[in-house]
């Protein structure tokens, strides 16, 4: 009931960048087993901005972690481009994350002892990759951080911090950017700013973005929203608005 629902007119028609098949994740908590993921099939297309939604405990964060190679699913496969990332050893996963994936987390995105600029450049430095100055300038301008580059994170507002994180995730043009509740800690105005940047960059830079959120307003910035409940994909909406998303969500939780 998931991929079959894709409509031919949407921008998600481009070839899939990330494909997950039959993902399950089972946690042993003492005596009982918890099925955080109970067989998820999903794909994300190039240049699309997708939101994963669901009530608390629906498994949305687990799904993202498995897709990003941060966590290992119990069964099933995940492909990034032509690479099957399930089954890769830790070293290869690290390289994969470093070179092909971008991350934005809810909080604690930045290293407190590095300046904004150093934070943005950190993944490139870890990879010993030369930074394209033009792209750096472009990204910095898109997120509007030009005059804040020399500041330590403690001197930046929450919104600015998240924009630094966005810039860092976008700088290397990774194949996919995963954002885990990127606006969870922000007030609505800053949140809107960050989401606008994410959406614009997905468009402008043809960047694939996957965002986990529980906020219908945040989800409304996406091109497509997929809904999770009890570890399964249960629904999806294209070109969502906050209202349609809320409606579906309420229906799910009922």
């Amino acid at each position, binding site marked *: 009931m998931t991929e079959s629902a894709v409509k031919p007119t949407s921008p998600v028609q481009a070839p899939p960048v990330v494909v997950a098949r039959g993902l399950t994740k089972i946690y042993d908590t003492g005596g009982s087993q918890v099925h955080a993921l109970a067989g998820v099939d999903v794909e994300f297309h190039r240049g699309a901005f997708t939101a994963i939604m669901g009530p608390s405990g629906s498994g949305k*964060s*687990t799904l993202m*972690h498995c897709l*990003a190679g*941060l*966590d290992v699913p119990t069964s099933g496969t995940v492909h990034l481009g032509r690479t099957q990332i399930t089954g890769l050893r*830790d*070293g290869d996963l*690290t*390289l994969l*994350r*470093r*070179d092909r994936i971008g*991350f934005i*987390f809810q*909080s*604690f*995105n*930045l*290293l*407190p*002892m*590095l300046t904004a600029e150093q934070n943005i450049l*950190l*993944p490139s*430095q*870890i*990879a*010993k990759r030369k930074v394209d100055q033009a792209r750096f300038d472009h990204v910095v301008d898109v997120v509007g951080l030009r005059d804040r580059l020399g500041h*330590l*994170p*403690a001197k930046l507002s*929450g919104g600015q*911090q998240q924009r630094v994180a966005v810039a*860092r995730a976008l700088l290397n043009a990774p194949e996919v950017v995963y954002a*885990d509740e990127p606006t969870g*800690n922000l007030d609505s105005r800053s949140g809107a700013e960050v989401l606008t940047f994410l959406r614009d960059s997905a468009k402008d830079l043809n960047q694939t973005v996957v965002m986990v959120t529980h906020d219908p307003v945040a989800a409304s910035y996406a091109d497509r929203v997929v809904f999770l409940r009890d570890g399964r994909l249960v629904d999806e909406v294209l070109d969502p608005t906050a209202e349609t998303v809320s409606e579906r969500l309420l229906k799910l939780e009922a």
Partner: protein
Amino acid sequence: MLRTTLAGLRLHKSRYVTTVLAILLGVMFVSGTLVFADTLEASYEESVMGSATSVDAIAVPEAPEGQDEDGFPLDPVPFDEAVLDDIRALPEVSEADGLIRGQAVLLDPEGRAFGFVPPAAIAFGEVSRLSASEGALPAADDEIALATSTADQAGFGVGDTVTVLDPDQEKREFTVTGLVNFGVDRTYSFAGALVFAPETIQEMTGAEGYSEIDVLAAEGRTPEDAAAAVASVTGTDVPTGAEFGEEMAEASGADTQILRISLLLFGVIAMFVAGIVIYNTFAILIAQRQRELALLRCVGAKRGQVFRSVLTESFVVGLFASALGVLAGVGIGALGARFGGRLVGTDATASVVISPTAVIIGLLIGTLMTVFSALVPAARATRVSPLAALRTSATAAGLEKGTGWVRVVFGLLAFGVSAALVGMSQMTRPDPAGLFIVTGAALVAFVGVVVLGPLLVRGIVRIIGVPLRRVGVPSMLAVDNSTRSPRRAATAMIALTVGATLITGYSVVSASVETTMTKQLDESFPVDYQVSAQYSLEDTGSAEDPGTDQAEAPEDGGAEGPVTEDDAGTEAAAEDGATDEVGEPLVPDEVKETLAASPLLGKVMGERSTYVDLSPDSGVPGMPVTAYYGAEMGVDLQGETVEGELTDLGPGKALITEDHADGLGVGDTLAVPAPGGDLDLEVAAVLETNASFWGAIITPEDFTSAFPDIQGDRFLHIRAAEGADPAEVREAVYTAVDEYPTVQVMSVAEMKNQFSEMMDIAFYTIAAMLGLAIIIAVFGISNTMALSVLERTRESALLRALGLAKGQLRRMLSVEAVLLCLIGAGIGIVLGVVFGWAASSAVLPGLVFSVPGAQIAVFIAIAVLAGLLAAVLPARRAAGTSITGALASE
């Protein structure tokens, strides 16, 4: 509240592991020392008491009042045969026997005389407090027993055949029948001891009279009766066996006391370092638990309750760790007594003594130190406002603010005061008081380091960070991390600085002293070999002196040798021919002649010397007067002068060292009383005080005419001919002394080796003791790292998510720890070098400052290694944490 505290402790127990270890090690050392010393003392007491109480009274001759002409106390006069007979005749006494003591030359397995001075040679009768600890006492005239220590050092055992020289220097062979353990009895522990059968002692030593009479009380009489009766005969205080044993035990107690105190000193250093570590741990834990504490305040805990809660926590941790430390200390102390007892002269035969003091002191010192170190963090904990619970700290434990100006000013002031003190210590003449000033200066400087620590860390990291940043992301991050909380880093590092300063300081002192001594030796006495006769502690007036027998003997056999007691002040000593003075045997003339004739040897210089009493009746030790026969002053022998030149020495003139000059300068007259006619000498030069020259130096001509009785050399200084093969030179020197086993040959090269070996042993011993403080400091750094890692779990996860490999994460933490260790050690090394220099130049005249580069390189290597070790566990933990788990937490 108590329940909350304990629950918190249980929950966070892993955070206390290294703290517990640090306290444990310190307490272990302290308790271990106490147990070790107690056991040694007890076992010695047991052995002396056991042997002394086997007799009822022990009479020992007392030394007559007064001093000899050199200012040494006079030797006691032994009891004669009549005294023993009188004692035996007493109704209170059933049996009594005397102990005869002389000395005899024992040859080691190579056929050279054993020891710098000949060992004591004794014989005793049936009644004696001494007995064989192994084998049997000698019964026949070809049997001998050795002191356990002598047998160990010379390498002899029961059943071996040993050679002893009789007073005529004839070799006599004896079979070792047994060993006697003299313990730490000073009479025998220094030179060693040989035990002969009573009938042999006379012919082997020529000694007469009894140096000790052991008495058994008659039936029905108490030891006290017997002792009192004996005292009436001897006119001396006579202790009973038990009293004698107690006195001996007390004396040995004084010995173990020194050992105990010096070991405890290292224990205190270790505890001090442990205190720093504890302080830092609690400070970090309090900082990390801000919200927890604030929550407590929110639900109604008072400031006092929070304060007490933290103190209770420290008390529980301290008590627990101290208890473990005491246990470990008992084990270490027992092991030490078991295996280390021999090194300090006794076998620990008694079972391990665990005195309540050792346990209580260990528990007290550990617990108090912990609670005391937690005071400041506890006080800080009370300042947490209840509101902090509600605040979300986005960037956990943000960067500390800059260092205040007060701090900078205070720190710089400390350094200034320290520099001034060092300057002051260098202004005055070398003087032991300078050492105290330097120690004070070092302490003040240390306070400066503590105060400026955070600033120092930041500054140094900024400098060495420049190249490190280029190396790669892990080291770049490490550089940034290490300055995140400079105060925390500084405290961790200062713990290491303590040990590093002490070790470096000592190594600088040791190296400087060694270089200075070697240089003085090289410059003043550019010789290859020194020949001297075995020094004798016994009387030299009688025929037993091995050295003088070979010298040209004047007609009167009783007064030959270095007789110098001709001047007025020595009648008391001269009256009694047997106890004239400390012997100064001479090198046989034949040896000098053989050596001088050898073409391989360039120069053979004879050194003759004596003491003169400049102001009779003053009781002040006399001044040594020395002449170097066959040496050209200023050419063959050199030295630094304060005034004048060595070459100015000529007939009627004298050189004098500054410490004996007593205000005399060049041109002044030095009056030297001499048996051959008093000399009025013109001072030609004043020499700097150093180890090579001492007192007045005059020409051989003046010496011979002034002291006609002195007909031999105390030392021969030999320089090889130019271009001679060292092996052949050695052969030539040893061949010349072959027939004189008591003549000792010292190769200067060997001497230097021995000297530096001695310095090395001292250095390694001290370094090993201080090693404990360093281990504790490394625990501290490891703990700081571990707690920081805990604090930065989210950060580590973020870095891993962004593509930092596990290895890189580990490297990041290793670099950070190494950086901390290097800074700590580096500051310690700088302080150590500075104060090592200040201390040695404040005490030692003519110091040649020397920095032991190799040793310092080793310290640095150790610091790097310590850093790597300190990072192992925290790094494993950081790299092992699951990324998603860490991201989800909080």
